[in-house]
């Protein structure tokens, strides 16, 4: 009976002023801490979702650089440079059935408009002479435009110029450098990647 009376009184008493003030002080502080935590989490998540164009560019550069450093002078199958693609003979990864890890093959970089991708096609000698399709891999996805230009030394003026296409005047001739210019969906600015070809230049 006594206990019942106290409980009833306590229920009617409500909060003291001190309790109310403490709650009013602590509640905004806790709300702010939780809110800022939530907002910073959401921002971080959004930033991670967008992806980094630099990461895609770095991977693309790493993959393509090896090919352009291994361009070979090969008279029978010349270097062919167009505005929207380039093909050449280079060191490639060999099929295990053919033995060896590296071999000589044909590499073709071109812009696949239907897939918005820069594609690399590789053929070994069997595929070249049978004129069958090579192994195609998408090297960069979400590409809006893709242009290739070639650095050559003008024979008459001895000036160095970037040209939109390259056709060897002598068998086995190579451009001095190749520059890939492309735009991606992640970046408004165009990206430029230049590769000097160690074996590049004219030959005697």
């Amino acid at each position: 009976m006594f206990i019942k009376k106290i409980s009833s009184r306590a229920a009617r008493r409500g909060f003291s002023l001190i309790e109310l003030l403490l709650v009013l002080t602590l509640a905004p502080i806790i709300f702010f801490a939780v809110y800022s935590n939530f907002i910073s989490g959401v921002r971080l998540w959004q930033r991670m979702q967008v992806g980094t164009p630099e990461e895609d560019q770095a991977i693309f550069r790493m993959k393509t650089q090896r090919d352009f450093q291994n361009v070979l002078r090969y008279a029978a199958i010349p270097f062919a440079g167009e505005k929207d693609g380039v093909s050449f003979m280079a060191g490639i990864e060999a099929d295990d059935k053919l033995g060896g890890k590296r071999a000589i093959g044909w590499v073709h970089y071109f812009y696949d408009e239907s897939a918005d991708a820069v594609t690399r096609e590789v053929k070994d000698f069997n595929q070249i002479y049978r004129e069958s399709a090579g192994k195609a891999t998408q090297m960069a996805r979400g590409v809006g435009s893709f242009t290739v230009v070639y650095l050559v030394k003008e024979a008459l003026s001895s000036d160095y110029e970037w040209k939109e296409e390259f056709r060897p005047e002598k068998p086995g001739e190579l451009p001095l450098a190749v520059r890939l210019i492309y735009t991606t969906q992640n970046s408004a600015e165009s990206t430029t990647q230049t590769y000097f070809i160690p074996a590049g230049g004219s030959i005697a």
Partner: protein
Amino acid sequence: MVRRDHRNAEAGFSLIELMLTMIFVMLGAQMIQGTMLRAADVYGRYTDTLKVILWSQEQVEMAREALLSDELESKSGVLEAPNKEFEWRQDVVPMEGPNLYKVDLSLSWTESGKPLTFQKSVYVYQKDLL
């Protein structure tokens, strides 16, 4: 015994218990937020470093091109990116031997108040071209 349990159930939490809980919750929230901000810093540093590496790779190729027309020289400038500036410097040192140079590239910027520097040195050589 039964009466005491009944009283405890009615009493609920004391103010001290409530305040202590709130303090622990806030401390936990602060620790989580600190971890998130640290993750954001690491991510920013990673993208900036990638940007700088890509720029330096292209700058080396530009140096090779400049060497073709005898325009390779020491220079400096500012690389501008959204909300960030990278101060860069290119030093060209002639080496023993014809057409052989050492190119020192350095970039400096700040990430969350901390100064960062990236350095790259390459040798560039120009063979005689026809």
